[in-house]
């Protein structure tokens, strides 16, 4: 008998009998107020992320310092041109020297301060981890109130890869000391910027 058949046969022989219906999962009342942008920002900051407002002259004013200090910038957004073209990358290893990567989030979650990316936004998935810093563009209109609402979105069923980022890479495996940039990005800044029509 194949391992597959042996396992399935074992389960059929042993599985508990009884009526155990699958419960309905409610959407729950959002734990956040009506100002989703403020709530999102508040929670993102608690998770170690940063929030930047677009400047009037320069939309990237909030992250300009970070961009100016960078040698290699990889942009996956039309709003800014970097100096590393993600579309011509053949192997993920090629983006390991990126200082700052820019990506547009599909949506944000106010309850947790999370942003969602799929392979469509990232172009090269690995850039969101190999880059030293991540700048995320988020349209304030794209914020859902809670995690339950997020999991009603279609992206999880159709993307090859979908990932929620909530602040930067972090660890506290040594005596509980919080450190950003464990293996992935050292910082994550969300810039509230509506999608360009």
């Amino acid at each position: 008998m194949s391992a597959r058949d042996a396992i399935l046969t074992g389960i059929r022989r042993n599985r508990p009998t009884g009526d155990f219906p699958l419960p309905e999962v409610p959407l729950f009342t959002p734990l956040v107020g009506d100002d989703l942008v403020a709530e999102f920002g508040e929670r993102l900051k608690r998770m170690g992320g940063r929030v930047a407002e677009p400047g009037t002259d320069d939309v990237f004013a909030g992250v300009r310092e970070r961009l100016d200090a960078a040698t290699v910038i990889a942009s996956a957004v039309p709003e800014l041109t970097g100096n590393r073209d993600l579309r011509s990358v053949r192997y993920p290893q090629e983006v390991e020297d990126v200082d700052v990567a820019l990506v547009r989030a599909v949506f944000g979650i106010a309850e947790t301060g999370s942003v969602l990316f799929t392979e469509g936004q990232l172009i090269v998935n690995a850039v969101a981890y190999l880059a030293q810093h991540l700048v995320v563009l988020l349209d304030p209109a794209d914020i859902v109130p809670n995690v339950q609402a997020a999991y009603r979105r279609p992206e999880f069923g159709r993307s090859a890869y979908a990932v929620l980022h909530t602040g930067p890479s972090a660890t506290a495996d040594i005596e509980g000391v919080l450190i950003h940039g464990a293996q992935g990005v050292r910082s994550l800044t969300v810039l509230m910027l509506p999608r360009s029509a």
Partner: protein
Amino acid sequence: MSVEDLNPREREGVIHPEVRARSDESERSQDGGRLQHAEAASKPIRAPKVREPQPRGAKTRGDRPINQAEAAERFLAAPLHQAAHDERLWDLRKKRDASAHGIPEWEELRELASQIKTHTLSHLDRYLEQFEAAAKANGVHVHWAKDGADHNRIVLEILRSHGAKTLVKSKSMLTEECGFRHHMAANGIEVIETDLGERIQQLDNEEPSHVVAPAVHKTRMDVAEVFAKTLGTDPDNDDAHYLAESQRETTRPYILKADAGMTGCNFAIAETGSVVTCTNEGNADLSGNVPPLQIHSIGIEKIIPKVEHLGVFIRLLSRSALGSPITQYTSHFRAPRKGTEMHMVLVDNGRSERLGMEEFWTSLKCIRCGACMNTCPVYRRSGGLSYGATYSGPIGLIIDPTFNKRKYSTLPFSSTMNGSCTNVCPVKINIHEQIFAWRKVLVEEHQIPALKQGMMKAAGAVLSRPAAYRAAIGAADSALKVLPRFAVYNPLNTWGKKREMPEAPRQTFHAWYKQNRMKDTGR
């Protein structure tokens, strides 16, 4: 901000005490508040800078029963380690409470999670078939492994067919269960753990001691010693930032050159064929997105029916584990990247068998949050390695004997039966009741020494008759008052050693009730 700040690699040579870039944002939020997301402690917990050798775990000798009490005694004999460990885990427990109390629907979520798991486990064959079909339709290669050896053989075959020699992986309790790393080492495959805690343990040739924080039993001085020996760091520099940065810098080259990447699985969604991982470091995403070959090892009990059910578990998992509303990364791997291969290995390793154990099958609902460990007074004072098993703490006591009844026969006795584990469990496993049920099974099957058997028989007889139980409780409480110290704090009562016994109430609740309330109602 300067280029130097952006890239701390430029700062090599700068050592203790402060190696972090001036603009390091880890401790404070943008608004200046103290951050405590991920595994972070709510206040600094620093072991005093006195070198105390790290107590090692239980001695294992084949199938011989683990002597957890002996290993626990050695842990207790290292007061600095014991205190830091206890403090650290109790802090996580308190953060968990604060986080759970912040959600009005917390109890409803626990109930939902429990029901979803119960439903799925009782229809597991159907959901596994659905998962397999969905994964195959996504272009994923699906494999089935009867046990750990089967899993290791399958993965080795996949690696060999690609000529792969190096593999980077994220933390997975399942692969620990399978003895994966040892098997790969014996077959010439270099395996690199990428989670900081797990990497520390790998470099120290030790098993993880906690499902969420693998190196929580070590102080920063222990880590400095391990890294100095293995990574060539400064042995006198025990700054956590320096140590973490050293691990990042030495691990990254492995990630970039690895032939294959592997992750475990927190949740597998039957509807979409997706594997979901929850990490704080982003190392599962590196393992899954950088190498040209990716492998996901999945315990068959990880299945949930639909994406919408994930919301319930994601909201519970990190809050229960760390008191954080969500992990930094929640990753959903569904299909391979263009030009790469994706494999999923569904592993049984005793799970289908456990499903048939009437009293114990609900332990399969476990989502490995570690809340029961953080709350357990025995675990906090003895360290995870004292259990000598893959799973330690309360959940370990009820899972480990399913793998080896003789070897883990003593573990269900390492509990005070306070029931706190059951109260914090996000999927409502009746952990302490199962611990008691295991004691009975092990006595009946003569797996435990005669001395404890005598105690158990007495306990069993008493517990089966409510009147006798009440009389015994009354007697025990009085005994605490009249017995000399040597009778209460004797070697049979291991857990009395480092703690004072509770003061016996003047009257038991039942006696009080009988005297007062029953009288009031005229009975």
